[in-house]
């Protein structure tokens, strides 16, 4: 009886324990994925920010900001829409594809803000459809229809996820100015592809009413962006689209038969996946691979913006966080292809700018934005309205979007000091891309192997830039050496040496400053204890991607702590300055290594350039 009773009791406990364990597991999962702070403990909130990533604003603030972000992102729906138009997809199908797209945006936003295993940066960075995949997507749509677009999108997403951990190492082959060029050419190719749908030789001629609608749409978006303030400025694209629809309706450009389809669309409905089929075409590997790399670099850039925005003590990009973010971006694009969305997704740079402008960068906003996308995915009426967008409105919206992409690309290119090598790399590559756009028949005169690559302006310009970049690296590395005697340490002389060399090599001032601090702080830290006699050799080398400093001295290794020594250690210990110096040296360089051989210690400093 007693045993039976015990048995019953234990059975009840086990039953009660399961829900308890489950709730604990869920709680622990949520803590890891969402509640745990993502900013480093040393981070300080900039004065311009009201809510940083880890702050939790009120529901009202989260909702209003979430709506603003979704409104801002809505303009990029023109990319999947135009790809659907390229294959003459029927309106109900377009409506369904856009609904699926909304779900994908929700998924992409969620996996970016949640940290699931190695995925997700945790930052407030919603997903958006991107121009990166627009030009290659149009080519794929024309060659193999939507299944080829979906299949190649999966390939592009997988490639982005694959390169995510290697981004830092790829810098040598894919330097900043070439990423700027790729983004610029993406804008050019997307803009011209859009214009070709209305002005190309096979397009239906544009009538005067369409010119008026396009002018009103683009004009209102631009005017609101320049002169409006507050919410009107934030939502200028959405307001411009609404004005475009209104003018198109007045001008009779909204086909009543199509509008009837909007009328018939339900307010609530579940997206269908019956359209999904995938195919693959090896000749499209190059354009999609370049688009994928562009998306990865753009995501890395946007994540860097988020890091800087959230931390006034930001020193350099956190590659672990960026890798997680780019990985989730690639996975979201893969899912876009798998789910049958015409085009890949990317982190939204305008959203990062909006967070900076409003001072609200809380991760809660991303959750709200994801919830809104998800809800919109179940509202066929709304996606039907988007699906029947008059082409004058679509092209105007595209012009608005690509303007920012082109200028963004130009800004990235101009952020580098354009020496003769880079001038040739960029100038010749842009010219090659424009040649393909202006003289498309020139491709047929090329050998077939080259023609396969040169068929797209984006691929041609990128391929030439990558090739020239590699060729022009020959002879780019320069070195200089300085000897320092233990008895004659002169910090000013060491600084002068590095500054003069940095200037002669065209190194950025901030990099030279870091290198100079590294050497002088090292000498200070080792002079008392580690380096007691003999000669120190400072060997500096530089190419356009890095500055390397190797300091060799007879003596012992300096400790380079990863954590800052405690305040008591710094203040009260005789070794305080040395320990702090080691910590600062580690933080000052992008990479630092020290080793001993034959009684000589060498400290290698690496600074990205």
């Amino acid at each position, binding site marked *: 009886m007693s045993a039976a009773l015990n048995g019953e009791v234990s059975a009840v406990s086990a039953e009660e324990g399961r829900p308890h364990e489950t709730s604990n597991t869920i709680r622990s999962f949520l803590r890891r994925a969402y509640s745990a702070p993502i900013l480093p403990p*040393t981070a300080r909130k900039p004065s311009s920010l009201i809510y940083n990533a880890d702050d939790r604003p009120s529901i009202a603030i989260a909702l209003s900001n979430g709506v603003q972000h979704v409104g801002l992102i809505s303009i990029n729906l023109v990319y999947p829409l135009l790809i659907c138009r390229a294959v003459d997809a029927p309106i109900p199908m377009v409506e369904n594809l856009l609904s699926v797209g909304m779900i994908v945006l929700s998924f992409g936003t969620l996996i970016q803000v949640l940290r699931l295993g190695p995925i997700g940066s945790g930052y407030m960075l919603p997903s958006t459809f991107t121009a990166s995949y627009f030009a290659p997507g149009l080519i794929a749509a024309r060659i193999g229809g939507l299944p080829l677009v979906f299949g190649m999108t999966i390939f592009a997403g997988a490639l982005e996820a694959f390169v995510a951990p290697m981004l830092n190492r790829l810098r040598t082959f894919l330097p900043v100015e070439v990423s700027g060029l790729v983004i610029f050419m993406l804008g050019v190719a997307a803009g011209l592809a859009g214009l070709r749908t209305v002005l190309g030789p096979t397009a239906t001629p544009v009538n005067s009413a369409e010119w008026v609608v396009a002018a009103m749409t683009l004009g209102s978006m631009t005017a609101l962006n320049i002169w409006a303030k507050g919410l009107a400025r934030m939502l200028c694209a959405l307001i411009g689209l609404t004005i475009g629809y209104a003018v198109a309706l007045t001008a009779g450009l909204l086909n009543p038969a199509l509008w009837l389809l909007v009328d018939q669309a339900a307010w609530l409905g579940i997206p269908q996946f019956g359209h999904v089929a995938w195919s693959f075409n090896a000749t499209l590997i190059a354009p999609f691979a370049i688009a994928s790399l562009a998306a990865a670099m753009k995501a890395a850039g946007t994540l860097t913006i988020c890091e800087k925005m959230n931390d*006034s003590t930001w020193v350099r990009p956190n590659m672990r966080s960026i890798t997680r973010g780019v990985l989730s971006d690639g996975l979201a694009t893969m899912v876009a292809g798998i789910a049958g969305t015409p085009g890949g997704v990317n982190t939204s740079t305008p959203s990062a700018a909006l967070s900076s402008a409003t001072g609200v960068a809380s991760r809660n906003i991303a959750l709200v934005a994801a919830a809104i996308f998800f809800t919109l995915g179940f509202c066929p009426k709304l996606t039907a309205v988007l699906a029947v967008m008059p082409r004058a409105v679509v092209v105007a919206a595209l012009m608005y979007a690509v303007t920012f992409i082109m200028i963004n690309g130009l800004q990235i290119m101009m952020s580098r000091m354009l020496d003769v090598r880079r001038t040739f790399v960029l100038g010749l590559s842009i010219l090659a891309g424009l040649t393909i756009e202006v003289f498309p028949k020139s491709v047929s005169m090329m050998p077939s192997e080259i023609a396969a690559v040169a068929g797209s302006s984006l691929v041609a310009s990128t391929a030439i830039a990558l090739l020239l970049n590699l060729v022009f690296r020959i002879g780019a590395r320069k070195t200089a050496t300085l000897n320092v005697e233990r008895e004659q340490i002169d910090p000013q002389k060491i600084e002068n040496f590095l500054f003069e060399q940095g200037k002669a090599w065209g190194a950025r001032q901030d990099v030279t400053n870091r290198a100079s601090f590294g050497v002088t702080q090292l000498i200070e830290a080792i002079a008392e204890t580690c380096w007691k006699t003999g000669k120190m050799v400072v060997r500096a080398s530089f190419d356009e991607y890095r500055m390397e400093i190797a300091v060799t001295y007879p003596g012992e290794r300096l400790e380079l702590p990863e954590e800052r020594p405690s305040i008591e250690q*710094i*203040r009260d210990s005789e070794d*305080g*300055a040395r320990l702090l110096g080691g910590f*600062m040296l580690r*933080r000052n360089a992008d990479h630092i290594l020290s080793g001993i051989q034959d009684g000589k210690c060498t400290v290698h400093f690496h600074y990205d350039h």
Partner: protein
Amino acid sequence: MDVVEQLAGSVTIIEPRGRIDSATAKEFGDCLSKLLNAGRHQLVIDLHSITYISSAGFRQLLIAKRSTQDKNGKLAVCGVSGEVKRLFDIGAFGELLPIHPTREAGIASVQ
């Protein structure tokens, strides 16, 4: 390194000029100690004329901060920008040595 001292009521403003490194940090620390021992317990250190500060300089700032607290005084840092601000950042001194944007703000914070 030179150190210029100024008075603003009960507040002493110290403006070091040049480099604060292992060669000059002790001199800088001695100067601060002398002021504290002389009863000047409200100190504003204006670093706008500093071109370089090493770990030895930061150590002196932390020692001075502790000494002022021991004497119920206050110490503020201002005039930090550019490369020196970057060094404050890599040393992660944000909370230990709060930086005031102007000398006036620094004076107000120690009064």
